[in-house]
């Protein structure tokens, strides 16, 4: 693999949550992301999966410095983003973009599609002529499958899938090197979802984009990712190449997630074995000692309560944080 575009090391994002106290509030830390490390190369997609509250969106935003990072480093082409001041960071931002889950809510309702897509260009290339911007917008719209006649329409005149195409065009127009996709297809209908997935994969191919693809949907993540990271309560449970992970998941949590995904085939779906896990996510304000997953884990033993399992190698490029992955 070539030198990584992005190298995240021991990233922590802790929020202070007020827990009572009348005059002098007491605060407890909520460890939304707690010691996450990974590399991302150009042209590579890292899928980030986990259930709600696992910290996957927080991680995506922290990488882009949209949230204050508590500790750790985010190295972009060798330079640490967390050490940059506002001005330097702004200059970097044209390389890094984000696509959000709710396509309508992430577009300004009072701006036309054309203005929305042109806004990043106006922000970063203030000297550019109106005609050049217009040409760029038209070209980008064609690439994401929007018709030229739609340029003066407002977001509410578009369907969900088209709004998401506008969001993608806005993210792509500056020619970014990294795009964080935060549940970009979760709000879309089945037939539109496939169109948007294909569009994202085509754009990645065409521009050699690095993508962080955040999703709760394992089927989609498997389709689009080269590598996959599984998060639980802010910690990495398992990270591996796509095929290795989906053929031989080592972590009981990954296994539980995978066997819980319904398969659109009546015979397979009814016959498949399931790794059952406990019902409820523990409070992230008071995570379990040792392995955070142990309260729901079918394999948990005393050592899981006493010792935090480190990420261990379970094969080439395959790391797993479990005391019992060999069992």
């Amino acid at each position, binding site marked *: 693999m070539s030198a990584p575009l992005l190298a995240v090391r021991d990233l922590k994002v802790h929020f202070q949550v007020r827990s009572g106290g009348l005059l002098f509030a007491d605060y407890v830390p909520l460890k939304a992301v707690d010691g996450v490390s990974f590399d991302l190369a150009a042209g590579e997609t890292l899928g980030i999966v986990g*259930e709600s509250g696992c910290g996957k969106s927080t991680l995506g935003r922290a990488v882009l410095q949209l949230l204050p990072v508590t500790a750790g480093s985010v190295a972009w082409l060798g330079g640490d983003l967390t050490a940059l001041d506002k001005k330097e960071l702004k200059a970097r931002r044209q390389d890094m973009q984000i696509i959000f889950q709710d396509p309508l809510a992430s577009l300004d309702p009072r701006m036309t599609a054309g203005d929305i897509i042109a806004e990043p260009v106006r922000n970063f290339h203030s000297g550019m002529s109106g005609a050049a911007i217009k040409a760029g917008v038209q070209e980008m719209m064609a690439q994401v499958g929007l018709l030229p006649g739609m340029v003066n329409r407002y977001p509410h005149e578009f369907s969900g899938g088209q709004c998401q195409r506008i969001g993608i065009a806005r993210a792509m127009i500056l020619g970014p090197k990294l795009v964080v996709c935060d549940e970009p297809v979760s709000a879309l*209908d089945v*037939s*539109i979802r496939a169109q948007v997935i*294909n569009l994202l994969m085509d754009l990645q191919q065409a521009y050699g984009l690095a993508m962080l693809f955040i999703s709760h949907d394992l089927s989609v993540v*498997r389709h689009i990712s080269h590598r996959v990271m599984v998060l639980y309560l802010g910690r990495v449970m398992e990270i591996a190449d796509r095929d290795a992970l989906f053929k031989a998941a080592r972590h009981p949590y990954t296994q539980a997630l995978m066997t819980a995904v319904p398969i*659109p085939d009546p015979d397979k779906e009814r016959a498949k074995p399931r790794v059952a896990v406990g019902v*409820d996510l523990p409070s992230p304000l008071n995570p379990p000692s040792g392995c955070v997953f142990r309260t729901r884990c079918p394999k948990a033993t005393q050592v899981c309560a006493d010792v935090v399992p480190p990420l261990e190698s379970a094969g080439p490029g395959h790391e797993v944080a479990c005391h019992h992955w060999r069992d």
Partner: protein
Amino acid sequence: MNAPVLDIKNLIVRFATNDGEVAAVSDLSLSIGKGECLGIVGESGSGKSQTFLAVMGLLARNGSVSGEAIYGGVNLLTAGERALNELRGNALTMVFQDPMTSLTPHMKVGRQLTEVLIRHRGVDKTTARNEAVAMLKRVQIPEAERRFDMYPHELSGGLRQRVMVAMALLCGPALIIADEPTTALDVTVQAQILDLIRRAKDELDTAVVLITHDLGVVAGLADRVAVMYGGRLVEIGEVHQIFRAPQHPYTQGLLACTPRLDDPATATLVTIPGQPPNLQNLPSGCSYHPRCPYVMDRCRVERPVLTPGVSGGLKACHLDALVQGAA
């Protein structure tokens, strides 16, 4: 099939809007047998939810309905509010998508549950409490007595949806209408909720209508599947037939554009081109014709009616037989 629990005939649902009248459901007929699970599949705007809101007398105020929905010899569409109140929550129950907005936020879970029993079965408070707690245990809510005295916001999404299922089961209903019951839930929780519904169906012989956009969920639970598009039924058949040999190009397209965990990952997903139809401006002839790969001249002018397909079931398509595995 045994005698139907619910028999819907020629159901039409219309909404009066500022832009004129919109037909959300057009001429829909189907029936649900005792202990049967009927999956209703379709994208947003297909009419899948409105069909059953109409049956339950829960349409928005600008909605009007015609046709028949016979339950126990009574046409629910003309039965009137008083008769419906005797049936709703008793013999006919619903589980909605979002458990936070479908539970009353200022009432303890226990009161919301016992209300159903006191209202419909006339039992006293103590009996109601005992039965309600027993039902909470039955849907595997840990510490059921303690949860009984909690408010909905104190429960996680998964527990809230269990409360909804418990409420739907309390009076031993003949039919449960589950409208996207697991769409807001994480996959591991989804699997548990679907297990509960499956158990109710198997052990209590309850009929279930499962409305969802997720073909995997349908594959695991449904006995028969109805596919809706643009407010009409386009295909209905036994679950294996629908998944193995779909007779309508739309069903075939939906299956093909769903990424799945059991398939070898493919480079590009098959897509259905275009957008779901706008109900205010439905295409002529077959509503699906602008997106259909098999479109013929006839499809643009003549709307197909439901006819028996070669592999069983009914389909509304002018093609005599669909080539399998072609999409």
